[in-house]
């Protein structure tokens, strides 16, 4: 199994290097420190969500509600601060707590009521986005104090603040998934949930934890997003779930669960961001790059499927 994972990641790493090389050759603006760091800043929100989404998908589940949790957290940050008059840091923490609770609710619906994750989080996608819309009445909140932008627009030791957060999260997540009994439990659940339960592993608790973490990551991403773009709107984070899932699946995590790594997800993220950036530098219009991402996603899985044709689904 380890060999198989390596093979997918090797393919992906090679692909990433090739893409980076082509992009560097195409535009001398690509391989500048400023550009690269800025790209890191841009991919943090999706990155945080995708890293935790890796856990969710490895358990054989999916979380479609993360984009809505981003939006809800953003709105709540604004509402807590502006309407309730809480100090901004407290407002942000309270909003993150609410977003995390949203993730916890997903976990409860999935583990207690045995609702399939796809449909449970599809429902909460609508619910949380609806709450964001209902609470905000589609009004945006602006005028945050300068100090708040440190998180989304500032630098620490020359690197965007939020990128540190992503790096630390990725390292911790990678270690947890690869080297701890929690990670082992996650893999076991995704490979054969019944056997995991029959082996005395805490299946429901692990799933609950994973969805709660996913809500937490999305909530943090929501606050970062507010800080980066200096405003809150209820439609923030729309479609973010698809970007995150694309990165995870591109990174070699099986959508059926049981297989995947954080490193793969990071490679997937970098590849996507590099494509977006590089193509826009090369003069291809912004959103057109999404086409390429879709093609890359399907092709990678297709090739990976052909290489690993082992009959195991």
């Amino acid at each position, binding site marked *: *199994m*380890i060999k198989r994972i390596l093979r997918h990641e090797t393919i992906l790493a090679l692909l990433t290097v090739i893409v980076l090389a082509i992009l560097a050759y195409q535009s001398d603006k690509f391989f500048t420190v400023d550009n690269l760091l800025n790209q890191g800043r841009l991919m943090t929100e999706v990155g945080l969500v995708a890293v935790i989404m890796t856990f969710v998908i490895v358990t054989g589940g999916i979380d479609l509600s993360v984009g809505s949790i981003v939006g809800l957290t953003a709105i709540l940050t604004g509402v807590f601060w502006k309407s309730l008059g809480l100090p901004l840091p407290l407002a942000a923490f309270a909003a993150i707590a609410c977003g995390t609770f949203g993730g916890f609710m997903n976990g409860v619906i999935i583990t207690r009521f045995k609702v399939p994750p796809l449909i449970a989080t599809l429902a909460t996608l609508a619910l949380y986005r609806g709450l964001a819309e209902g609470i905000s009445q589609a009004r945006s909140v602006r005028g945050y104090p300068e100090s708040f932008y440190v998180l989304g627009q500032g630098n620490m030791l020359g690197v965007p603040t939020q990128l540190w957060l992503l790096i630390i999260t990725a390292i911790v997540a990678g270690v*947890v998934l690869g*080297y*701890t*009994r*929690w990670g*082992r*439990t996650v*893999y*076991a659940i995704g*490979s*054969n949930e*019944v*056997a*995991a*339960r*029959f*082996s*005395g*592993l*805490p299946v429901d608790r692990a799933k609950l934890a994973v969805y709660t973490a996913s809500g937490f990551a999305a909530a943090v991403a929501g606050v970062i997003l507010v800080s980066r773009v200096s405003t809150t709107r209820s439609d923030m984070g729309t479609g973010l779930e698809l970007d995150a899932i694309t990165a995870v699946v591109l990174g070699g995590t099986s959508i059926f669960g*049981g*297989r995947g790594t954080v490193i793969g997800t990071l490679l997937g993220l970098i590849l996507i961001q590099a494509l977006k950036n590089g193509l826009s530098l090369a003069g291809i219009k912004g959103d057109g790059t999404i086409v390429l991402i879709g093609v890359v996603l399907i092709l990678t899985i297709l090739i990976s499927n052909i290489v690993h044709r082992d009959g*195991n689904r």
Partner: protein
Amino acid sequence: MPETVQPFVSLTGATKTFGGITVLKAVDFDVRPGEVHALLGENGAGKSTLIKIISGLYVPDGGTIRIGGETVTLSSTRDASRRGIATVYQELLLFPEMTIAENIFLGNYPKTAWGGIDWPEARRRARALLDSLDSPELDIDRKVASLSVAQRQRVEIAKALSRDARVLIMDEPTASLAEADVQRLMEVVRALRQRGVGIIYVSHRMPEIFALADRVTVLRDGELIGTRDIGEVTEATLVAMMVGRSIDQLFPKPEPIIGETLLEVENLVSGKLVKGLSFSVRKGEILGIAGLVGSGRTETALTLFGITPAESGRIRIAGKEVTIRSPREARDLGIAYVPEDRGLQGLVKSMTIRQNVSMASIDRLSRGIFIRFAEEAARAVNAVKRFGIRARAGIEQPVGQLSGGNQQKVVIAKWLETAPRILILDEPTRGVDVGAKSEIHAIMGELARTGVAIIMISSELPEVLGMSDRVLVMNNGHLVSIIDRADANAESVGAAMTVAKKSKDAA
């Protein structure tokens, strides 16, 4: 059965290999119209492979199939079905969310003039078919999900008849039926024979075979041992043909060292199949649990293991009263359970031997939350050596690639890693080859001698009789009797198993 009757289906030299292992070696087999041909053999003898070849699920690697004298290739079940071969599967391939009528005609609907499905006609014919199977109580508009196993089976038979089956394959049709349902099924089979349908009947149960079969074929290790008319054989000769040796040689049981009582269960109740059970197991003892499938044996184990916690009753371990609400709690109390369905419940097939062996004890193998990989590997290496697990790639081999016997040893190794005081084994040798079987029995004997209390659930009577110090017999969720080793024999246990309390099938 006169020799002059031409067989409807005949196989000559049928051979099948999977991944280098030959599971069927040049087997000849045939079925005549209007006969019941019993197919016998231990688990792994090749019965299901043979059946799957006849039903078109597998294409044989060698040999020929003739149907009505014509040489054919059956490349799909559709092919087979078109040629009049139908199968009543052991795992019952029905669609739970569809009605009985629809299940019967799926893929073969009566059509109206304009080509649409003629539902009134389908319902009428479904009604007639079920009536002809003496099942007027089955409502054709009911969803199959709500039916009992016996009822589903009749739906499957009706489905086969709706396609004008000339040959009907029945794979262990009585394995999960209560006695009353068995009688009823046998009536149906006799009626089908009367109509000229040829029936391939796979079963372990000798009384049924002698009551129904015209001929019997025995397979062992993928080879044909022989085909006989039923009049030529006795139960003893059939068993000898199946196992190749007598029971005493199969179960070399060391003298037990029985200690004090370890587990006491009083009035245990859980769900519909554990209805007030009381028994105890002592250190070093092997308690066999016998009973038909559906008698509550596995459900009792699942209750003790915390999968379906007890609703009432008392459980005491070493004199201390305990509650068991999850497998983890069970494990921490020293209870281990080697489950019935190895592939689903026992193993994570895509994971390696190392990862599976450590799965139930991973928290004890960790420092904080970090897994001690060296320790984990060392233990796996140990287990491979201790149990003689044969794996080409060593401990890093995914367990899905191992043979049934080696897989079972991995499951046992996994649970012994938790150092259990009470080991529950559910069908420990199902789907395991003869060699690994006796190895597993040896492991059991050895464990018992170290003071582990063992509860063994098994559908194989010889195994129960050969291994148990006492035999607990269950029927319909109740304890029927507990029989000491000295008094346990095929008659006493068999009789207790089949005591018909009441029909479960009163729907």
